């Protein structure tokens, strides 16, 4: 599954997206755990959210293969 990255997440991953193995019915929490396993540097951030189809996603949301999934590190606009 392709996961898009922005800000510091892009620096940690080394590019604008990362590949995480997808399994049917995978939850947002499972995705977060897979990201942390592959890139332990994310543990050091103030927060790590996941957006699914342009909305902040709860941990128990199930990801579908067609969803647009994005890592949201701590935001700092304004």
């Amino acid at each position, binding site marked *: 599954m392709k996961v*898009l990255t*922005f*800000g*510091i997440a*892009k*620096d940690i991953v080394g590019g604008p997206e990362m590949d995480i193995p997808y399994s049917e019915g995978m939850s947002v929490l499972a995705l977060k755990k897979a990201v942390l396993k592959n890139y332990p540097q994310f543990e*050091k*951030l*103030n927060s790590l959210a996941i*957006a699914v189809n*342009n*909305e*902040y996603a709860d941990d128990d949301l199930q990801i579908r293969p067609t969803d647009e999934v*994005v890592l*949201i*590190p*701590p*935001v*700092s*606009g*304004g």
Partner: protein
Amino acid sequence: MEKKIDIQISDKPLSEQTCLEFVAHPGAGGIVNFIGTVRNQTKGKAVIKLEFEAYVPMAISEMRKIAERTFQQWPVQKMAIHHRVGTLTIGEIAVIISVACPHRKAAFDACSFAIDTLKETVPIWKKEFFENGAVWVAAHP
């Protein structure tokens, strides 16, 4: 129906005049315009430039949600939220929030709520460049 909310993300310099013209309303008694600018230092370290990056479709959607919430909580007549992306130098405008209300108190409160919430929820990231390095703002404790 007349458009009441104007949300924009742009890599071109922002215009307070454009925002003020958008929010102009015959029933308005107070217009508050917040302008966020690039400061020349952070905790005593000289800042050379900033870079803003946005996840644009979600950032626009989150900014629209903020505007809609202000309309629910205060008697807002019109509102504009414009955010810049790309490379900015000292003094340049990063964000403009303009709010028109019948009276000033609601306009101040709604504008303050909008910028506070934007900083918490909108997927935009700021990188500060110093003479000897750069950091993504707020990323680490």
